[in-house]
């Protein structure tokens, strides 16, 4: 089992008890004044040189947000957030936008280097022979700093750029699809995002095109006291295919950082979108101090017949995760998938899951969720599967497994199953257990340390989901799982 050996190797390499991405970068940044008001919304919009319609859209969201309450139903606890004590806009100083990589602040490039994300195309090309290309959009605090492989993608007709750029270059597409999956009235955090979103990625894959490479965005929160509100919009036109991966890190800071992103996916007829996330925001220190509040709204709309949207997520970071990547199965014969690994350690709190809303005929969905709770953490799966009156022959299979490591943590499963159609067939199963002593003993007697053994067994536990990740991220993810569980045994 090479994958397992690799894991063990990787776990050995790790320097203990350190969040590897916890460094911060000294980069001059421009910030809007603290707090939120119509003026701040106008400031952000002006800073980005946005058209009138978008400013109006933001203002409408802002006014709506003022009337809304923070949701309290999730199984997470945290001190009340003072939304007036946050910066809603921070950008590296040279925000005119680099024309090429040479113009990018070298300090910034070094940051991404440390994160192991190649922003220089030649570096990627100079890599191992036959290694797949990955186009990267790097978002630093609130602003997209660079997008690679743009030209090659353009040849295929694929648009991959920051959303600010797309507003300027493809306003008709942005106007048509922005807010069409997650409306500005959707929920507290999504509405806040609509008012103040700063940047994010935009992807459009035209009819019949199979995107020639993996697309990827790396998010990085750097500035202090700054909320990050990126907005991602991906559209796969008829018969198109795209695979997209996002990765997230943040420096170690004692205060909590707010991250409230919105991701909208639209799949038209026969299109397929595969969206993978490796979320490794700073989880806070061993005492639960600091860490990112990750309050994210992600939703995919299978708008066309036979379209398919697949979410894969590996959630290891953040102090608090509140996140339910969902699929609206509107097109007949459309399919939604959700594969999740959520690991919580220390004082992390995870409340995550999915919604599969079956509206069309012959729609199907599949949910595989693996939750691992260690330390003092709480890990909740919350999911909804519903079949509406007209969703004839809807099918769902759900499997939620939880693993507890140690007796101070909690693992919870809260599925909602709503069948309004008799021909809908739903199957849900869930189990909660601990790592079996027998397995552990077997591994130890073969010479593994307890931590290695746990990492190995956990990697086995999450295998079904790992296999859904793009090949090139699997090894990295296995390593991450090992790191996340450090200090959970003994």
């Amino acid at each position, binding site marked *: 089992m090479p994958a397992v050996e690799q894991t063990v190797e990787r776990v050995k390499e790790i320097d203990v008890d350190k969040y590897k991405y916890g460094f911060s970068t000294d980069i001059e940044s421009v910030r809007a004044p603290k707090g939120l008001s119509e003026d701040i919304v106008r400031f952000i919009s002006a800073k980005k040189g946005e058209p009138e319609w978008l400013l109006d859209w933001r203002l409408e969201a802002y006014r709506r947000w003022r009337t809304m309450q923070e949701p309290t*139903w999730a199984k997470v606890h945290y001190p009340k957030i003072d939304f007036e004590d946050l910066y809603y806009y921070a950008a590296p100083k040279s925000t005119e936008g680099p024309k090429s990589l040479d113009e990018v602040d070298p300090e910034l490039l070094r940051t991404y280097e440390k994160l192991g994300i190649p922003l220089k195309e030649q570096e990627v090309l100079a890599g191992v022979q036959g290694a797949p290309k990955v186009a990267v959009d790097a978002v630093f605090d609130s602003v997209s700093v660079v997008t690679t492989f743009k030209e090659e993608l353009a040849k295929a007709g694929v648009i991959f750029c920051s959303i600010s750029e797309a507003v300027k270059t493809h306003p008709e597409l942005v106007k048509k699809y922005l807010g069409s999956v997650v409306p500005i009235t959707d929920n507290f955090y999504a509405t806040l995002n609509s008012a103040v979103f700063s940047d994010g990625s935009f992807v459009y894959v035209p009819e019949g095109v199979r995107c020639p490479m993996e697309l990827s965005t790396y998010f990085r929160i750097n500035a202090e006291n700054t909320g990050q509100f990126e907005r991602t919009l991906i559209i796969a036109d008829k018969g198109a295919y795209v695979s997209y991966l996002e990765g997230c890190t943040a420096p170690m800071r004692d205060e909590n950082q707010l991250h409230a992103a919105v991701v909208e996916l639209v799949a038209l007829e026969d299109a397929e979108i595969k969206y993978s996330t490796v979320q490794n925001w700073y989880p806070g220190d061993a005492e639960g101090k600091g860490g990112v509040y990750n309050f994210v709204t992600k939703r995919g709309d299978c708008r066309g017949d036979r379209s398919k949207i697949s979410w894969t997520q590996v959630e290891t970071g953040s102090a608090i995760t509140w996140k339910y990547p969902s699929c609206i199965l509107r097109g007949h014969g459309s399919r939604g998938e959700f594969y999740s690994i959520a690991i919580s350690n220390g004082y992390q709190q995870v409340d995550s899951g999915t919604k599969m809303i079956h509206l069309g005929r012959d729609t199907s969905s599949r949910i595989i969720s693996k939750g691992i709770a260690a330390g003092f953490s709480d890990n909740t799966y919350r999911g909804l599967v519903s079949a509406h*009156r007209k969703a004839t022959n809807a099918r769902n299979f759900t499997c939620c497994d*939880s693993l*507890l*490591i*140690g*007796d*101070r*943590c*909690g*693992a*919870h*499963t*809260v*599925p*909602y*199953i*709503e*069948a*309004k*159609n*008799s*021909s*809908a*067939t*739903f*199957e*849900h*199963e*869930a*189990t*909660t*257990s*601990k790592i079996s002593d027998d397995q552990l003993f077997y591994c130890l007697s073969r010479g593994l340390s307890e931590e290695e053994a746990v990492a190995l067994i956990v990697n086995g536990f999450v295998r079904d989901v790992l296999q859904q990740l793009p090949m090139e991220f699997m090894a990295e993810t296995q390593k991450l799982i090992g790191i996340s569980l450090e200090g959970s045994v003994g």
Partner: protein
Amino acid sequence: MDLSVQQFRSEAEQALLDLYERSVDALPGDASVADLRQSAIRTYAGLGLPHRRIEAWKYTDLRAAIAEIPPLLAESDAPVDGTAFEAAFGKAFAQLPAYRVVLVAGAVRTELSDVQGLRDAGVEFGALAQMLESPPEWLMASLDAASASGDDVLIALNTALMTGGVALRLPEGLTLQKPVHLIHLDGADTPGSVYTRNVLVAGEGASATVLESFGTLGRAGVQRNAVTTVSLAAKSAIHHIKLQREALETIHLNAWVANVGADARYDAFQVSMGAALARNQVSVRFAGKDAATDISGATLARGKQHCDTTLVVEHDVPACESRELFKLVLDDESRGVFQGKIVVARDAQKTDGKQMSQALLLSETAEFDSKPELEIYADDVVCGHGATSGQIDEDLLFYLRARGLPEAQARALLIQAFVGEAFEALDDEAIGDAFAAVSAEWLGSPAE
């Protein structure tokens, strides 16, 4: 009295407060009971009727469902006899050998009840209304425990307004050879409300089967709120069984609350087939190690019936076992709800908890909502739940028809087999046969 905590109040919510005000002086009980009532009505006043924004009532909006509050049904001497039982529960049920206790408007109809038989068998038995006037310590303890459950409005209203029911204590080591059958039969020519509380206490090593059946007399609709608390001392065993076959105008609210001691066993079984709206709550709390519970049953609904079964099992101590199996058969525009929660506390190691709910939808317009929940804080546990929803398997149907069974008969056989799995929890043959008979009758009598 300050009852202004809740800002908005629907007419029915206000009417409940008025009902309390009007009735309070006539309600049975000494000063300590009156205090309990007072504090319970305050709890209600603060919370109002539960509605869909209250998580535990997400699929059953009581505030929207209850428009009027009819007056408390008075004790009556309406003739109740064998034919009334048969009409209410079917022959097999009416004839079950048991210590029968008939309750009308919460009052024990002694002429129809085998109270003497129970007492001869060694059971401490009393009508609740009388016992509340000077409640013995064990009864007060049970009432206090139920009140301590806090924000359960259904129970709070019951505490505030209970007019009758029975209190029944099995002394240490007593094994009852025949089941106790508590028959709740209510109704009159005009709508009425009935609030009953039954208190069951099993001493160490005692065991019994307690059957509760709910049926309708007369024509007009009843709003029923019935609570039974069960307290099981170490090594005791109670098999608690319910048949709800009330008239279609009924609103049936029922909560069973069990506290289970070490090495004790509490098994609950419920079949619901009547009422316009039914809410069945069973909550079991393990208070001693190595105890076990099995909660199973079936919902049979058609027309516009709404039936909600909500179970909570709290594993507060190590090494207990819980099993849940519910089957729902939903026809026409009926709606079945199943919520089941297993909570495993921090130190409840070696917990073994399993739960399954399965719905069979017979019509395009039936609806099934399910929320099986696991909340687990201990690591050395084996817990799981499953939920399925679907229609009759066409391949099975074809197989049966290819063997000559007409379609209707083949369907009925498959539905009965589906429900029958839950009936396996009944080890008493006579009771099992009685349930098989009432469910077969349901299957054979489609809605008009």
